[in-house]
């Protein structure tokens, strides 16, 4: 038996590996997008794929997001399994028409005869000092569209496992990659990647008893940090990483909230009409009698994403999370 050294890998490297393994396993998998070939993508996630599999399998397309996703629909109709890259969150918007009018509802329109196994990879979120249109949290638009899975990893291992599962899915998946975690590192064995649950399962990242932080993607490490800091205040916080916004894992989330009796939802996306509203409603509907306090939200402000020099005031950070935890009606305890 050989043991492979477990080396630190970045999330970007794990995503590359997932694409590579998916392409090797299934000749129907095609990667396409802007700069994904020769350059290997602006975040280098497709690095080496064109060299290994040829430009027909990893294709630099013309610069047109509607065209990229529209042609991917046709390719999927003919039995291929396209994985398209949108270069940045805000540059996926030209593809909205294809996504909403076709990708999300082709299965339904054709009574299941024409499912579209398309993965749309979208780097999203802020915290990288990007100028305007480079830091949007667009998940609420996707979540609000029936027919789309919406998946987002927060760890290196999940990046690999969830992307493999997304590509394998016969339904379209919007795969949201937290930009600022691309370079986050973790010990990870690419030869024997740890098995990852199928799409739709949340996971408890940090167990705790006092309250539950419900979060996903770029906000997971922030919540874990907040949970560590909260120990000084005497709070033992549990952190639930949703991993998938659609489907939503009511079971894991509610099991946690029933245990702790308190919950805060944390995300970068704005709070008004954002994912937190749906999550808080679901938790309240299911766990009302276990709740000691209303479910609170810590989110980005409801403003256009600010310029880099102001973004730290916009992004939910440890202090804002702890403030919210402090407002969970602890007086009732004593």
């Amino acid at each position: 038996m050989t043991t492979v050294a477990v080396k630190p890998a970045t999330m970007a490297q794990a995503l590359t590996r997932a694409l590579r393994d998916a392409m090797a396993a299934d000749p129907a998998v095609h990667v396409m997008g802007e700069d994904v070939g020769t350059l290997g993508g602006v975040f280098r996630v497709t690095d080496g794929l064109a060299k290994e599999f040829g430009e027909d399998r990893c294709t630099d397309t013309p610069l047109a997001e509607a065209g990229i996703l529209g042609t991917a629909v046709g390719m999927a109709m003919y039995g291929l399994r396209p994985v398209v890259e949108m270069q940045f969150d805000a540059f996926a918007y030209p593809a909205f028409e294809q996504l909403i009018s076709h990708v999300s509802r082709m299965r339904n329109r054709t009574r299941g005869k024409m499912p579209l196994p398309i993965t749309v990879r979208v780097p999203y979120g802020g915290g990288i000092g990007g100028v305007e249109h480079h830091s949007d949290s667009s998940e609420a638009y996707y979540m609000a569209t029936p027919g789309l899975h919406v998946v987002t990893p927060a760890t290196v291992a999940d990046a690999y496992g969830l992307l493999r599962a997304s590509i394998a899915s016969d339904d379209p998946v919007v795969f949201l990659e937290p930009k600022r975690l691309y370079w986050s590192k973790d010990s990870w064995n690419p030869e024997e990647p740890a098995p990852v649950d199928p799409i739709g399962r949340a996971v408890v990242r940090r167990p705790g008893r006092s309250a539950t932080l419900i979060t996903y993607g770029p906000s997971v490490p922030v919540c874990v940090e907040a949970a560590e800091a909260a120990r000084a205040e005497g709070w033992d916080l549990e952190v639930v990483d949703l991993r998938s916004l659609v489907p939503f894992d009511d079971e894991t989330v509610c099991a946690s909230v029933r245990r702790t009796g308190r919950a805060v939802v944390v995300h970068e996306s704005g709070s008004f009409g954002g994912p937190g509203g749906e999550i808080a409603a679901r938790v309240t509907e299911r766990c009302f009698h276990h709740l000691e306090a209303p479910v609170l939200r810590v989110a980005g402000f409801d403003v256009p994403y600010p310029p880099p020099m102001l973004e730290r005031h916009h992004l939910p950070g440890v202090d804002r999370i702890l403030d919210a935890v402090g407002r969970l009606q602890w007086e009732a305890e004593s």
Partner: protein
Amino acid sequence: MTVMEQRGAYRPTPPPAWQPRMDPAPLLPDAEPYRVLGTEAAAKADPELLRALYAQLVKGRRYNAQATALTKQGRLAVYPSTTGQEACEVAAAMVLEERDWLFPSYRDTLAVVARGVDPVEALTLLRGDWHTGYDPHEHRVAPLCTPLATQLPHAVGLAHAARLKGDDVVALAMVGDGGTSEGDFHEALNFAAVWQAPVVFLVQNNGFAISVPLAKQTAAPSLAHKAVGYGMPGRLVDGNDAAAVHEVLSDAVRHARAGGGPTLVEAITYRVDAHTNADDATRYRADAEVETWREHDPIELLERELTARGLLDEDGKRAARDAAEAMAASLREHMNQDPVLDPMDLFTDVYAEPTPQLREQREQLRAELEAEAGAEPEGGTHR
């Protein structure tokens, strides 16, 4: 008469003879990019214009170098350089009248500066303290536009509105070769032609869209040829020949102002620097290719012409250099000061009147900042 009888009586009439709606030949671009410098046409060029172009090119090159240096020093978040593309940038601004409008892409801060916008305000987006750093109405310059080609329909709409109001205003919109693949490019050109809007589309074909070469972007004979499909003239010009770009754009502006409708101009140039400071161009192109373009440098082309005609001597060169240095020194000085930031600006101008919800969020941030300021000396607590 019954339906069947009617059908029996039906005789198809032959369709009317098909006519092309216009002769496409005059719309076609020339086989070769139009050139002035080093050709017979140069003799006719106005010496004052050539000197003015030269001064602007030298300043533009210096501006690019200074902005690149400021990025290395961390004073700009990112800088997409137009080194080697200065002829297009400055000519685009110089051909416009004061009442006209410029619609720049994210790369075109030099055109914005050449139009008269303060360089610090033009670079605000790239410094990162706000999005648009200038008042678009002051110099009639639309905000720098990052979502590619989305500014083009805006230019068409503005030009159309000006005509509806009876103003003889022209809009000049800039876009890259990559941007021509976007759907908005198609829609903008079609609207412009259908409405005969007074717009000039300037495509700077600099060979690349980040790493993707033109060959992967289009199968058209040239980007200028696309014009014919919309029913507008396409013009091909050497984008490094400042006199030629100036002449072709001036003609297009005059044509538009006179009610002749839009023109698509493709300027052949080259992106000498990487896509931005964050890009590694060695991953997708050979240095040798860059070197060939250095020999076709816009400043050198013009300098050669001016010198040959006795219009430029060492004093003239020095004067241009000195003016460029003064601009760079002032830019350096201003950009080396930290911008004054107010976090509360997050909430300004989202709406004409903030919503009640936004007001709540604004108060939340204010309270946080006050608590932060108050808690500073002790530290340790999060409140």
